[in-house]
């Protein structure tokens, strides 16, 4: 509240709120123990110090620290006091936490009411402790007894128990833990006193189902506490207005508070001494590692970002080998490493005892690592927003220049880096598109609401529609989702045994304790695949890896994890047991979902950069360094132009290849490849093996195929696009893969958690098996429909696919026959790992595979 506001009005509001609560709810039971909240003292204090309002005291605290509030901070405080909701958009390190927090905090101090007043939602539970510290810091000057606590998946059960009785005034939590709180029978009561919600790193949540889950939770909170204000914090996005609307819901107009405080980003690229004309992923890695090891300086604290966890493992291992003297100064940090170890690393980084940390996106977010001076990006950053975010981890001070060093791991990444530099200068930041009404998330939310005091369908449907992600939800979709959790689905009506949500005195509730327990375990599953704990035989936890990885290991296989060489022994009760490896290590774990596609902004910049190179413009250092590759490409074929589609055909031992280079990112290429394969097989029967990367796609077929004749603009038509994509998706495995997440979120697959496994073994089934069962016996199931839609929307970035087709249909085709795969085609050959599509019958395929096996056997014998 602003300083000048008359006391009497505040008192009136307080009184009316109190009256409202008293009228609408049963009295809150007294907690057995009230930690740190002696009641009487507060009142005495406020009476003695009425001259200075809390916000003024907080301004004083700012000055004590040598800071002056920025105009955007004052603006945010004032907007909050006016009762508005919105989005605060300023770059990392500019002080947006306090911009969002001090306004509500001042109000909490002024009102001095018990019960939850302010909720701070952060996407990363690992940072909650730092947030807690930052939020406690200004409390001293307020001299108020305000309890600030965290509640995340890591919170001990005794603290949770206490919080169930009474929540602190300020609670820091994650979207998942918030949803677990919403399953509390007295949820309405617990949240009735809430005044404000702050959502940190909204740009991270917005584009994912975690964002949709949070949108629904916020809609629920607004119901419990009318007048609730929501403030989201976001880094730069192309779609800020949309981001703001999704944060505050459809019933209010968001206020967007921005500050043009972008910090200058200084980018440098570590140029390789020489490049091979035939690059493939990771090829440059080792020589570059030695150069980075020399470049690093233990005096200057450095974060080394990699794009995947396995890459982080390899770089950590390599750097330790190259600089053994840094044994105690260097560490590894990624999402699968045990929490305690991660905290040790974060602590070491902050106090300066660790100087070099190899990490993944696990350190993209979160609070200040003050001493970090430099940031290294290994491999392509894949996006502009991401580059800015990572660069912003260095010199985490308003106004200071951020430094980032790009390290290419293969020669073509030099082109991406040149393009990224260019796009950074132009500030071409990406948009993050929120998912549209994901019904799996809604199904989960319905069970959450049924547990949290129950609901009436009509009221809940209206409430759900106030979440922007669900604003277009139809009555039928709501009814169907409700029937999914109440009757199973329309086909299940005859089965009285099915009960998840039941009707009791007109309200939908959960009656079965087992369903309740399973649901709470399941809530956290939006974020993660089934994971297994990794432990030593002798005891001692190492962290967690995805089940899909462990299931491929055989006893005796060796791998590197958390920088340790391990030998796999066995898996039991969702725990993988390992012992230190004695033999040579053969592999690094591959974690799913770790490959990021090239963003649309960066993809466009890459096309621009290559086009310039085609014209002979090789002025940037990066392009000059990549010249041997580009030159070989120019000699064997052509360097792709921005507005011409380059296609190459080629015949090798593997068969007949077609390479296309649209430069649109791997997801778009995945969709495009499946689409083209389908359309080509309609023209002529064939089996294609598909391979894609960020630059292009390959179609390979064992028999000759008249690519020259069939490559016509009509192949790229947008007519019947959706039907064709769906048809190719049905044949491929994509929607099955997508269904895996949907099944987990909607509660079809029980959480693979230790302990939960034993009791639920009889009802474990893989999502792909469930997918097949649904496809056969309930093909109209809306979750299947959703899987298809998600494949279209997310997997293929449908809008992007359509725009790509438009571009390709209009583009002149440059079709060249090449003797062998070109520098651009070679990585596709090396990485051939993709889905298959066939119009041949199953038996024919089996016969052909047999033949191939026989031939290979004969050769090897």
């Amino acid at each position: 509240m602003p300083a000048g506001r008359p006391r009497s009005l505040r008192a009136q509001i307080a009184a009316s709120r109190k009256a409202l609560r008293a009228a609408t709810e049963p009295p809150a039971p007294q907690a057995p123990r009230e930690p740190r909240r002696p009641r009487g003292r507060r009142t005495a204090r406020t009476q003695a110090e009425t001259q200075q309002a809390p916000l003024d005291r907080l301004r004083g605290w700012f000055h004590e620290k040598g800071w002056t509030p920025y105009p955007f901070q004052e603006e945010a405080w004032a907007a909050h006091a006016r009762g508005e909701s919105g989005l605060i958009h300023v770059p990392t390190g500019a002080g947006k936490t306090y911009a969002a927090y001090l306004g509500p905090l001042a109000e909490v101090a002024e009102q001095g009411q018990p019960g939850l007043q302010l909720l701070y939602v952060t996407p990363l539970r690992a940072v909650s402790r730092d947030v807690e510290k930052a939020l406690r810091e200004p409390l001293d000057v307020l001299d108020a007894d305000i309890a600030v606590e965290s509640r995340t998946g890591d919170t001990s059960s005794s603290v949770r128990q206490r919080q169930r009785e009474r929540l602190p005034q300020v609670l820091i939590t994650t979207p998942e833990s918030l949803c677990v709180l919403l399953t509390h029978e007295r949820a309405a009561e617990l949240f009735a006193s809430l005044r404000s919600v702050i959502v940190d790193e909204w740009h991270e949540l917005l584009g994912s189902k975690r964002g949709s889950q949070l949108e629904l939770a916020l809609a629920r909170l607004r119901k419990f506490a009318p007048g609730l204000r929501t403030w989201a914090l976001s880094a730069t996005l192309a779609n800020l207005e949309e981001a703001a609307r999704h944060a505050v819901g459809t019933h209010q107009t968001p206020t967007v508070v921005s500050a043009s405080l972008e910090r200058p980003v200084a980018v440098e690229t570590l140029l390789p001494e020489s490049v091979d004309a035939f690059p493939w992923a990771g090829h440059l890695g080792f020589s570059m590692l030695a150069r980075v090891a020399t470049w690093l300086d233990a005096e200057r604290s450095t974060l080394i970002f990699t794009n995947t966890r396995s890459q982080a493992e390899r770089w950590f291992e390599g750097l330790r080998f190259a600089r053994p003297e840094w044994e105690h100064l260097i560490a590894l940090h990624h999402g699968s490493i045990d929490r305690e170890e991660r905290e040790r690393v974060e602590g070491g980084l902050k106090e300066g005892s660790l100087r070099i940390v190899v990490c993944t996106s696990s350190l993209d977010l979160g609070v200040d690592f003050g001493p970090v001076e430099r940031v290294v990006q290994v491999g392509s950053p894949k996006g502009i927003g991401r580059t800015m975010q990572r660069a912003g981890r260095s010199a985490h001070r308003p106004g200071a220049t951020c430094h980032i060093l790009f390290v290419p791991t293969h020669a073509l990444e030099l082109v991406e880096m040149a393009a990224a530099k260019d796009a950074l200068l132009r500030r071409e930041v990406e948009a993050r598109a929120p998912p549209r009404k994901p019904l799996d998330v809604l199904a989960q939310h319905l069970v959450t609401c049924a547990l949290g005091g129950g609901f009436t369908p009509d009221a809940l449907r209206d409430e759900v529609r106030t979440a922007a992600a669900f604003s277009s939800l139809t009555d039928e979709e709501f009814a169907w989702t409700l029937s999914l959790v109440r009757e199973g689905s329309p086909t299940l009506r005859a089965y009285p045994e099915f009960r998840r949500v039941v009707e009791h005195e007109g309200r939908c509730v959960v009656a079965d304790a087992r369903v309740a327990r399973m649901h709470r375990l399941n809530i956290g599953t939006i974020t993660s695949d089934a994971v297994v704990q990794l432990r030593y035989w002798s005891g001692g936890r190492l962290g967690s890896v995805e089940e899909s990885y462990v299931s491929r290991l055989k006893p005796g296989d060796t791998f590197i994890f958390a920088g340790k060489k391990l030998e796999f022994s066995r898996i039991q009760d969702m725990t993988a047991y390992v012992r230190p490896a004695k033999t040579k290590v053969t592999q690094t774990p591959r974690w799913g979902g770790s490959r990021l596609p090239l963003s649309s902004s960066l993809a466009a910049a890459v096309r621009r950069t290559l086009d310039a190179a085609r014209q002979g413009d090789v002025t940037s250092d990066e392009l000059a360094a990549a010249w041997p590759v580009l030159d070989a490409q120019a000699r064997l074929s052509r360097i792709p132009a921005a507005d011409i589609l380059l296609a190459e055909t080629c015949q090798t031992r593997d068969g007949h290849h077609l390479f296309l280079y649209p430069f649109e990112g791997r997801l778009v290429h995945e969709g495009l490849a499946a689409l083209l394969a389908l359309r080509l097989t309609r023209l002529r029967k064939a089996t294609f093996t598909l391979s894609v990367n960020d630059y292009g796609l390959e179609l390979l077929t064992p028999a000759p195929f008249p690519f020259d004749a069939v490559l016509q603009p009509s192949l790229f038509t947008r007519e019947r696009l959706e039907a064709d994509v769906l048809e190719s998706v049905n044949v491929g495995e994509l929607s099955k893969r997508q269904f895996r997440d949907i099944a987990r979120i909607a509660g079809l697959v029980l959480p693979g958690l230790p302990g939960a496994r034993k009791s639920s073994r009889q009802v474990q089934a893989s999502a792909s098996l469930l997918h097949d069962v649904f496809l056969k016996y309930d093909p109209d199931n809306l979750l299947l429909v959703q899987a298809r839609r998600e494949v279209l929307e997310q997997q293929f970035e449908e809008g992007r696919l359509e725009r790509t087709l438009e571009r390709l249909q209009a583009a002149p085709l440059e079709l060249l026959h090449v003797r062998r795969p070109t520098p651009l085609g070679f990585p596709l050959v090396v990485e051939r790992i993709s889905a298959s599509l066939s119009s041949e019958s199953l038996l024919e395929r089996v016969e052909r595979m047999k033949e191939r096996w026989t031939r290979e056997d004969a050769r090897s014998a």
Partner: protein
Amino acid sequence: MDSRRCQVRVADTALELLPERALYWPETETLAVADLHWGKTESFQQHGIPLPTGVLEDDLARLSAALTSTGARRLLLLGDLIHSREGITPALVERLARWREAHAHVACVLVRGNHDRHLKTLPESWRLEVRETHADEGPFRFAHHPEPAPGRYVWAGHLHPMVRLGGRGDTLRLPCFHVGPGVGVLPAFSAFTGGANVSRRAGDRIFAIASPAVVEV
């Protein structure tokens, strides 16, 4: 002779591998199947997991087809007939009793599997003769667990064997018969089952169910 089937000689005895996921022994007119997992869908439904029904009907139709086309007079059920106790709902018991009635002339023998231990007594109306661990007949031992037995060739289930075919991105995963030197494992009969990939050892023969036929790979 049906060309979709595969003829094999095991322990000097002619046998047929059926694409219906069943083994037929013509000499004794015996059909053997493993891992039917009756009531699996129902178990899921009781845990609040909304699965569509239909698997059981398809499975029963396939079993009936195998019985009819072979003219078998005896049916050996090699364990894991039921999935869990709670899946055995009154409606399910009734449905299976009707199916049993339709094949009343076929003698049914159940060799218990690990899942079957959940149910001490099976419904009377299913008219099953129960063996606790195995049934020895001729040169064969029929069991649930694929453990070698000296002097006999063992036919078992339990593992739900699957074979992975192809490579270079063009792969298929199919249920299969895994016929080893001393032990043969049948594919899981129920369509609602996952499986484990087999690893081929010397002397093993693998027959994939590339429906509609059985193909040795």
